[in-house]
């Protein structure tokens, strides 16, 4: 592997790892708070147990999220000094605001987790709300920074250097709104479905306690609503991509030729050598309709651009299919859940439904990883779309393979421990749901 590729792999690996925990950090607090609020309303002890169980899980996930996030903020400089030098002044602002969001999140999470006996009930719930809000805020800020890499604004280019910079305008870049909404929804959907899956599993093993029923309801409420909205927000950013990042759109869709009334390709395997995407199911006019809301619109193909500006087409296209596939299934499950609840008043009587929830548990996280692959790989060869090439930003440091290897091993180790700890928590819950948990 050359050093550029290693640096890219290390960045990708660290981000792919961090995002799992970040998503948990965004969505778990919301679910915790809902459970605690239900407890205050109904005084049903099983809600309290649930709150405490979930907050234990959150504490573990949050800590790993924090350390892996710290690694990331160093890595931006360690791996991409050229990028940081170029853009630090422009997008430092959202990163600093994110820093403050972390502060509030960490402070109030401390109070939430350790303060059961020390603060009033109201203050406790309030701390939870703050944690949930600041978790969402930190995601918003960091995704704004990422959106800027996709649709850079807020500066003028003179001799390849940015001048007249305007950090506020940079934060208001065209992709920012769509991407932040899409990411937040993704976090709620993914975590909601994953948690619902765990509880569905325990319900299927005949543990019909109120505990799991409540858990399933809250998780599906959060996950399902988000999953239902997700394709709409996906459509929203799809249009921004179509307008500002034509090479990415073409790669997403495996569109090599410029075409009027372009079809939507489902599946298929883009081949850069023959410049075609065989084996796809084509829906006539679909792409022009979706991307530009006009069946006759012209979609630029990759042929319009020099070969050196193509992203790796096959990876981007396949990742996009995976994300959209996951999104479609999750939306259907969400609709099914709403229907079951409305018809029967409870979610736990249909085994078939519980199985569906169990099987769709990993889909959200798969969607997140695939979606980020689309965004990041689809942006190649640019680190800042249309302005700075990734290759120009990489560190001159040699032997990057070593840190890459070390961090990979470290992360694998962390992942194993986390899974093991959470599994143990779940098992304990399974055994002692009725018992009081401290």
């Amino acid at each position, binding site marked *: 592997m050359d050093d550029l590729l290693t640096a890219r792999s290390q960045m990708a690996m660290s981000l792919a790892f961090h995002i799992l925990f970040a998503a948990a950090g965004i969505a778990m607090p919301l679910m915790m708070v809902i459970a605690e609020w239900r407890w205050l309303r109904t005084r049903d002890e099983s809600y309290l147990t649930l709150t405490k169980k979930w907050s234990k899980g959150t504490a573990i996930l949050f800590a790993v999220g924090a350390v892996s996030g710290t690694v990331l903020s160093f890595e931006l400089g360690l791996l991409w000094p050229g990028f940081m030098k170029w853009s630090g002044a422009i997008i430092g602002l959202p990163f*600093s605001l994110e*820093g403050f969001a972390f502060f509030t999140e960490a402070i109030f999470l401390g109070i939430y987790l350790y303060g059961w006996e020390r603060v009033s009930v109201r203050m406790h719930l309030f701390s939870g709300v703050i944690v949930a809000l600041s978790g969402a805020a930190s995601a918003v800020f960091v995704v704004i920074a990422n959106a800027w890499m996709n649709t850079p604004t807020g500066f003028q280019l003179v001799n390849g250097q940015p001048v007249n910079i305007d950090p506020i305008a940079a934060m208001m870049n065209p992709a920012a709104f769509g991407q932040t909404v899409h990411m937040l929804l993704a976090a709620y959907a993914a975590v909601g479905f994953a948690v619902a899956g765990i509880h569905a599993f325990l319900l299927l093993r005949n543990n019909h306690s109120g505990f799991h029923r409540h858990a399933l309801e809250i998780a599906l409420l959060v996950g399902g609503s988000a999953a239902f909205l997700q394709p709409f927000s996906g459509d929203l950013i799809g249009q921004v991509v179509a307008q500002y990042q034509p090479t990415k759109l073409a790669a997403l869709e495996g569109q090599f030729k410029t075409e009027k009334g372009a079809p939507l390709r489902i599946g298929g395997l883009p081949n850069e050598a023959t410049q075609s995407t065989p084996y796809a199911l084509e829906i006539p006019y679909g792409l022009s309709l979706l991307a530009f809301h006009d069946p006759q619109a012209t979609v630029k193909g990759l042929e319009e651009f020099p070969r050196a500006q193509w992203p790796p087409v096959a990876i981007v296209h396949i990742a996009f299919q995976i994300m959209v596939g996951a999104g479609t299934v999750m939306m259907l499950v969400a609709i099914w859940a709403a229907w079951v609840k409305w018809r029967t008043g409870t979610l736990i009587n249909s085994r078939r439904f519980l199985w569906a929830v169990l099987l769709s548990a990993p889909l959200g996280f798969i969607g997140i990883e695939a979606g980020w692959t689309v965004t990041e790989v689809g942006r190649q060869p640019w680190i800042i779309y249309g302005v700075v090439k990734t290759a120009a930003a990489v560190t001159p440091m040699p032997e990057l393979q070593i840190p890459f290897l070390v961090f990979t091993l470290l992360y694998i180790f962390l992942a194993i421990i986390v899974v093991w700890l959470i599994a143990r928590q779940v098992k304990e819950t399974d055994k002692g749901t009725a018992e009081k948990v401290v």
Partner: protein
Amino acid sequence: MISLTFYVLMGGADYGGGVWDLLAWGPRKKAQRELIAKAIGPIWEANHVWLILVIVILFTAFPPAFAAISTALHIPLVLLLIGIVLRGSAFIFRSYDKKTDAVQSGWGLIFSIASLMTPVLLGITVGALSSGAIQFKDDLLLSGFVNSWFALFPFAVGFFALTLFAFLAAVYLTVETKDIELQNDFRWRAFLAGAFAGLMALIVYLLSENGAPVIRHDLSASWWTWPLQIATATVALYAMIALWQRRFRLARFCAALQVTLILWGWGNAQFPYLVVADFTIYNSAAPPVALRLIFIALTLGALLLFPSFYYLYRVFKSHKS
């Protein structure tokens, strides 16, 4: 001027990062362990964010310096990161894993080793920045990826940082408990660490002659050097006396003040350099708009944060039930 304010703020943040780290100095016995765990549990995340804030401010306000630092000091920074990752995760895993002794001491070991490593690396990084050994020509790193930090002076600063952190931690912990035995344990540790810190300070000073000539020169040339040295020494002495008299709160205050003074002393000596001698706050500063905005963000953030922090500490540090 704005940049200067940043500098001070960063100093403060650094110091907070320090407080965080040192709390972890993990001595042996079980009760001591529990005390430490109890003391850090609720607040380590929040303290940890200081470090992140330093990084973020650095790359927003002084992008070229950030790029230079992270290129030249790639290796110690990567090691530092590994230390941070292991330390944070081992700590939390220990709290949520089985309570059997074997498991606990396994995590405890990782936790303490990482806690030892991290401050040393932090010190090495700082030392290297001050040493003047990092040299760029245009964008090319002349001094190589190893030479600038693999030297006597940075390592001395590293161990100085470690002893200093250890001293602080021990002093703080005396306040955290009502148990006389435990208090005594930590009191003696504080004396020991304090003595070592003094020794290391002397060594660092002696080494700076060759190890960090630019800074050393600045130090001896400016009028504030001696008053500051004397103030620091006085406060250090006070901390020791207070410890001796078992006035732990006073000791805590003095120790914190002492470290702050040392930090500011360093900051002042380093001023206006970020990386001696090529990068100063003037030639690395981001354009004024960016600085202004980040300054506003910091001010507003601080308004929001300080009450929250105060509340956090009040909730967990006031009454020991």
